[in-house]
């Protein structure tokens, strides 16, 4: 076991470490001021986006200059965080760290005063691959089992997922659109509830992200059926993709650092550079491995392309199921 420790002693150290992460070494010609950078996440603390953002907040100050705080704002189903970033000064000090739900999906289904073009990705942390899983003593153990069972008795399989139309629900809708299969959708309060309903035998299948089940799948306590992505997940190497099984359903969820589009291009570029440099540092790589975050940073340009592709595909799904017209 190793620790990334700069061991501090005494009571003031507690406060110091919590708030003042590392002494700032100012990069030359920084367009940023000395105020802290706020990474606002539209979810509660403790989840995957929080943990990933904290890797950046712990490593990037050295490269970017100011201190970096992770602020969790889950109010109004994440819209409050989005609005907070929207109304903050456009100087690159207030950034949104989010998956596509609060930005792309909300932009379509909620009454908001912004459009998808009002945002520009700074960089992408990772792509989360939605994964279907169940308990190991269940009759369904593969994608083929699932399809066969759903065809022989349509609408009999119970499928648990967190928030409706979220990133662990839309892939199921897309899969049903492609195949014409029917399942009973059982919305839950989150990944924890989905998992306890599956392990307790109350529902058949569920959807989650690989990092949260990787160690259970490895030890045989859960079975992962398939992944909705182009390539297999690095942490679930033995789990096939749906594409391998012959169903062209791919809907990965990214986690991006997003700025408003009125932030100057040079600031976005500076942030992109220092974030990517920080995430490539040995400390950040070790940290990312340790927390199973699977961070593979992607620059602003590629992230923007991915963002726009997602806007198009989500629009297609929502139109198809009648959520928007």
């Amino acid at each position, binding site marked *: 076991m190793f620790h990334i420790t700069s061991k501090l002693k005494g009571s003031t150290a507690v406060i110091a470490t919590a708030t003042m992460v590392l002494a700032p070494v100012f990069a030359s010609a920084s367009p940023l001021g000395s105020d802290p950078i706020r990474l606002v996440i539209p979810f509660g603390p403790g989840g995957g986006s929080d943990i990933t953002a904290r890797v950046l907040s712990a490593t990037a100050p050295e490269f970017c200059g100011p201190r970096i705080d992770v602020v969790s704002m889950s109010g109004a189903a994440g819209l409050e965080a989005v609005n907070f970033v929207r109304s903050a000064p456009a100087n690159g000090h207030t950034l949104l760290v989010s998956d596509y739900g609060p930005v792309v999906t909300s932009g379509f289904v909620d009454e908001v005063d912004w459009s998808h073009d009002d945002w520009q990705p700074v960089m992408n942390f990772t792509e989360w691959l939605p994964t279907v899983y169940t308990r190991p003593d269940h009759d369904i153990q593969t994608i083929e089992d699932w399809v066969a069972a759903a065809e022989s008795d349509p609408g009999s399989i119970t499928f648990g997922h967190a928030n*409706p139309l979220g990133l662990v629900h839309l892939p199921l809708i897309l899969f049903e659109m492609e195949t014409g299969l029917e399942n009973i959708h059982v919305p839950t309060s989150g990944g924890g509830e989905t998992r306890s309903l599956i392990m307790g035998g109350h529902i058949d299948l569920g959807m989650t992200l690989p990092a949260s089940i990787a160690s259970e799948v490895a030890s045989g306590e859960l079975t992962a059926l398939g992944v909705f992505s182009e390539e297999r997940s690095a942490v679930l190497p033995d789990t096939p993709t749906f594409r391998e099984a012959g169903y062209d359903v791919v809907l990965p969820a990214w986690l991006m650092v997003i700025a408003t589009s009125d932030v100057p291009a040079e600031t976005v570029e500076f942030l992109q550079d220092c974030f990517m440099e920080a995430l490539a540092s040995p400390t950040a790589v070790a940290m990312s491995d340790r927390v199973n975050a699977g961070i593979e940073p992607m620059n602003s340009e590629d992230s923007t392309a991915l963002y726009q592709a997602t806007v198009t595909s989500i629009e297609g799904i929502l139109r198809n199921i009648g959520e928007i017209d």
Partner: protein
Amino acid sequence: MMLEAFVDALHLAFSPEVILYVAIGVFMGVTLGAIPGLSGDMAIAILLPIVFFLEPAAALGLLTGIYKGGMFGGSISAISFGVPGTPGSAATAIDGYQAKLKGYPNKALNTALYSSVIGDTTSDFVLIFLALPLAIVALTFGPVEFFALYAFSLLLISALTKGKVAKGVAMAALGILLAMIGRDPIGGSLRLTFGIPELAGGLALIPVLVGIFAVSELIIQLAKAWMERARRIVDDTKQQAQSLLGDYDASKDKLSFAEFRATMRATWIGTTMGTLIGALPGAGSSLAAFISYGLAQRFSRKPDEFGKGSLEGVAAAEAGNSATSGSTLIPLFAFGIPGSATAALFGAAFILMGMTPGPSLINDHTEVIYALFLILIYANIINLGLSHFLLPLYSKIAMIKSRILLPIVCVLAILGTFAAGNSVIDVWVLLFAGLLGVVLRIYNFPLAPLILGFIVAPGAERALRQSLLIGRGEWTHLLSSPIALGLYAVAAIMIFTFTIVMRERK
């Protein structure tokens, strides 16, 4: 091998550095918990990055200390001002504040401390020795069983109504309606938002609870202070004392052993219910406190004193609240399932330290987890000692003249509520819930059933609708589980026997 790990764990847990961090944590937890809106959870969320900088044992010690201190700290403001500092201490406020008004805040605070520590310690031992069997029981709770549990807990409303059953039921219905605001958790459509997009996420528990209970209480007290001032202007001859402290006789306000022993039954009811409910993913500490309070009243020898400053009421609520603290980690340790916001934060702390929550945790990181177990136990002793030292200080603060103290508590409540969710809407909700609470108080509606309805409704609705989805619309599916049937049977028996008891009393 086991013994070796245990010795290593002893070294880790009892190193002076770790003990110091635990003590700092307890102090921070008690103090922050006492501020309305701020809770241990929030402090843990803010201090989460500390795991990057400290040894695992020291970091876990600090977080554990905050958590335990916060659990008890909420009851300080609940008792001193009638203002629950944390969601879990809402039930404590019912009798604790009445006790303070009767002139014995210290007795109530000490009762709260002892029952909190007893509940917490028991729950920790259950976590250490019975985690797996209890976790397996918890997994048998699916939507059908949860709906039965929530329906059962709504029955206890009558214990919270202070003899005004009709008004109490109306308040529970209002609480349910408030909880329905926002996005429907099953279908995703908006309801009862009155066209306000900010209400799409629904009302958060902390602003509603602090607003209804605390802000309304503060408004009424401020009104009294305001009228007192008006009266004083007329009556100018009376000189008021220069001292900041009002008149309060501390010597008469000591908890005797006999009084302590009389609360033990309530404490054990709270401890049992808190430990069991804490182990269920998603049920939560405030529900545990209310159920414990309701049951303790049912089984008390002096049920009529509940709501009027009963120390038993304080003990049951506080033990029920604190006894969730160990057991809420059970699903996390046994299956990697975070059953509550706190458990999710501890899960995140483990992940940030490179430890995967779940059954492999204890094998992969034996010393650290053993050390955590030791810390969980001795943090209670530190909590007991430190709080013993802090209580006289804090109850002195509570006795400061209200015209000085009340504005400060108001500002703390507003900023604390904002900080808890970083949400401006929460501040609006807080203030309007305060106004609603005032109106309801003026017209003698009991407030506790409203909170119970608000806490229970989201889970009950989700569980019922999930059950019907899984059972393909068949209502008989709700009776398909022996646990659910058992809960309904117990509820029926309780209604039956207590109606008879009430008849005989009359």
